[in-house]
């Protein structure tokens, strides 16, 4: 029997941190999700939630912290936590950052860049940890028993989804993707919100059968028309993707910074009702900080 995978949400907010009483339940930290399999520590994105993860890792009492970072892309809300990731300052830490193709160095460059002295008092080169770049080969990389695949998404400046497969289990992290620009029946779906929004086969295949899909569903249907081209999806479109791909559980992620907990609840209720109308078996919920799932 394979080892269980634990998935924990450390930051679920999109765009900018939103602390305060209105966002307590779903959380105000920006994107960061931990996937833990035995001693393997995988981190999806380094938004402000990464700071809390770093502190928690130190409390777990390991002699040496080794972590593997998969960045969806390098917009602020996905990298701002990295300079505050305390294990990066420890000489016993070893961090791996993954670039999505051979020869690419965008992740390393931008992690360096955001720590230039104009932005931050400690330079990247002064971090104590050993930080090494690794590259996907033809969209695949293996980590022990985990097979990781990447998939390019539609987002300003490019973004990537990642699929983590191990022992028959599949977890997909797919944030910052404007699914609505990919729809095969886009015009029809904008005119008639109830019609099934058909996603391309390649994307559906990438997500297919996932035990957990973590997907950007920032907007309601009403909000989206004013935000076309900003790189984010309607929660209802995520529901349709989950249904078409036969996803078991779908965590709607990257909550809009303008959304209070009550508004996120409404967004999730709407998407859940849509799945029920479709006769889908997917369980959909709003990703929230501090929730840990086991697979």
């Amino acid at each position, binding site marked *: 029997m394979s080892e269980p995978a*634990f998935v*924990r949400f450390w930051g679920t907010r999109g765009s900018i941190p939103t602390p305060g009483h209105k966002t*307590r*339940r779903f959380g105000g930290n920006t994107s960061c999700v931990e996937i833990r399999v035995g001693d393997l520590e995988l981190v999806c994105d380094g938004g402000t939630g990464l700071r809390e993860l770093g502190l928690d890792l130190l409390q777990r009492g390991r002699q040496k912290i080794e972590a593997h970072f998969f960045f969806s892309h390098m917009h602020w809300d996905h990298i701002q936590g990295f300079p505050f990731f305390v294990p990066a300052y420890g000489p016993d830490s070893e961090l791996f950052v993954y670039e999505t193709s051979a020869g690419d160095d965008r992740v390393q460059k931008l992690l360096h860049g955001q720590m230039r002295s104009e932005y931050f008092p400690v330079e990247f080169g002064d971090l104590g940890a050993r930080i090494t770049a690794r590259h996907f080969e033809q969209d695949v990389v293996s980590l022990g028993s985990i097979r990781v695949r990447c998939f390019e998404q539609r987002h300003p400046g490019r973004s990537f989804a990642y699929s983590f497969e191990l022992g028959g289990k599949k977890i997909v992290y797919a944030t910052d993707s404007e699914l609505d620009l990919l729809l095969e029946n886009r015009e029809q779906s904008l005119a008639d919100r109830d019609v099934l929004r058909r996603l391309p086969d390649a994307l559906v295949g990438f997500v297919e059968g996932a035990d957990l899909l973590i997907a950007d569903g920032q907007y309601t249907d009403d909000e989206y028309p004013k935000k076309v081209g900003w790189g984010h999806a309607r929660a209802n479109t995520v529901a349709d993707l989950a249904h078409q791909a036969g996803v078991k*559980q779908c965590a709607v992620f990257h909550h809009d910074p303008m959304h209070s907990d009550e508004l996120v609840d409404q967004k999730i209720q709407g998407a859940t009702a849509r799945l029920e109308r479709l006769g889908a078996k997917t*369980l959909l*919920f709003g990703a929230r*900080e*501090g*929730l*840990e*799932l*086991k697979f």
Partner: protein
Amino acid sequence: MAGDVAIVAGLPTSRRLPTLEQVRGPGAPRRFGLALAETVVGRGTQANVTIDSALLSRRHVVFRRNGPEVTLSDLESANGVYVNGVKAHSAVLHEGDTIQIGDVVFVLHEAPA
């Protein structure tokens, strides 16, 4: 209030504590304060809160208090722990969250400010 039970003995119930309101399952309705740093719920006598249900593991779930924050962790139970309908290994809890273990359902109430 009728149905209130100070299950965790030896601690004053008047303190401003987060509480679990049991709304379904054997013994419901009742409410108890999370007075201990860790409160284990299960069907076994080793649990701090014992509920006579065959669907519960002996030590099913632990609720932890850390200042005003309440978290829970599944203690490798047979039937799992569901927070607002999602099967959770652990979770940070908030006002109004529903927690289901077997046929037992709780609603968490945070400590009054």
